[in-house]
């Protein structure tokens, strides 16, 4: 192969202007800021929701234990969801990109699978907790209504929950799954390339 040396020379001729360091530093800063922003936004969401619930608790002074349990379950559902959601992204931040390509790919595949599991399980848990929470929470207030309106209120809520459970939840899961499946497939394809027997 007499053109071996040629390739190396050709290769090295490709040059690019070195972007000035300021540009890179500003990118680094932007990156730091956006990470911080995300952290603040997630936490803000949690704090605001919790404050809102506490406000309801204090302001309306629920009497029955069901209402209190309902409130706790609802908050729990939201907290668990947000935490799980963040953690599934944090998995990536923890991967060491200083592994060899083959280890890195295997790691990515494992993480994606974990993420897939987490997202479906968490979504399930979220719906169960939220529906039970709302159901319990409503009980005290429907007691004050006439039987007709009580049943009406529960009926509407059940329809809404069933719609979520049978329509939105599977749709959401499907969307996440197909996205993750696609990515896992791609990483597996890359991994295959390295596993080929020579």
């Amino acid at each position, binding site marked *: 192969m007499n053109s071996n040396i040629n390739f190396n020379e*050709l290769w090295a001729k490709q040059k690019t202007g070195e*972007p000035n360091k300021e540009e890179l530093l500003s990118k680094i800063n932007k990156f730091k800021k956006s990470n911080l922003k995300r952290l603040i936004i997630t936490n803000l969401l949690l704090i605001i929701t919790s404050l809102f619930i506490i406000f309801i608790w204090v302001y309306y002074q629920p009497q029955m234990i069901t209402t209190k349990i309902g409130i706790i379950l609802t908050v729990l559902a939201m907290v668990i969801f947000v935490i799980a959601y963040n953690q599934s992204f944090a998995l990536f931040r923890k991967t060491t*990109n*200083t592994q*060899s390509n*083959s280890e890195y790919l295997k790691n990515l595949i494992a993480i994606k699978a974990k993420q897939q599991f987490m997202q479906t399980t968490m979504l399930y848990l979220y719906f169960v907790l939220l529906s039970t929470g709302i159901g319990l929470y409503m009980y005290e207030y429907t007691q004050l209504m006439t039987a007709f309106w009580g049943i009406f209120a529960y009926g509407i809520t059940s329809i809404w929950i069933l719609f979520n459970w049978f329509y939105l939840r599977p749709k959401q899961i499907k969307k996440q799954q197909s996205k993750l499946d696609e990515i896992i497939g791609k990483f597996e394809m890359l991994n295959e*390339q390295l596993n080929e027997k020579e």
Partner: protein
Amino acid sequence: MVFEDIYKAYWQKIFRLCMGYINDYDLAQDMAQETFIIVWQQLPKFRNEANISTWIFRIASNKCLRQIEKQNRFLKAELPINLKEEKEEKEEKEENIEPQIQFLYKCISELPETDRIIISLELENIKQSEIAIIVGLSEVNIRVKIHRIKEKLTQKFKENEQ
């Protein structure tokens, strides 16, 4: 190790690796910059037990491999025609280098993803034992792969000449 020294010493090399992988000037620059952001982040964790060049090339090549996650989004969104033309004009300007160089990078970017990394490192004059550590394959394996890739490239160049 000071970040600025690393940056100076490795910028071109990392850019070429990304360019060989993606064959898109702007995208390669972005990927190279993102690589250096990771390098900057991870540098405090770097211990001298590894070779700094191995360490950096691992980060860069892993960054390239992750690119596959984003690629679909690029392909799906076709560029509007006028933008495309602008882009082509721009490319002509900035890549007014020997067509042979362009051809080499084009050929490399058409190889299977991991082969692109292996050949790019080889052309960057990195020892095969080091490439083996970067990629995570045996040295024998790497040698065989490099040989085959070079054969493929030579063939493509020959076809191109005709």
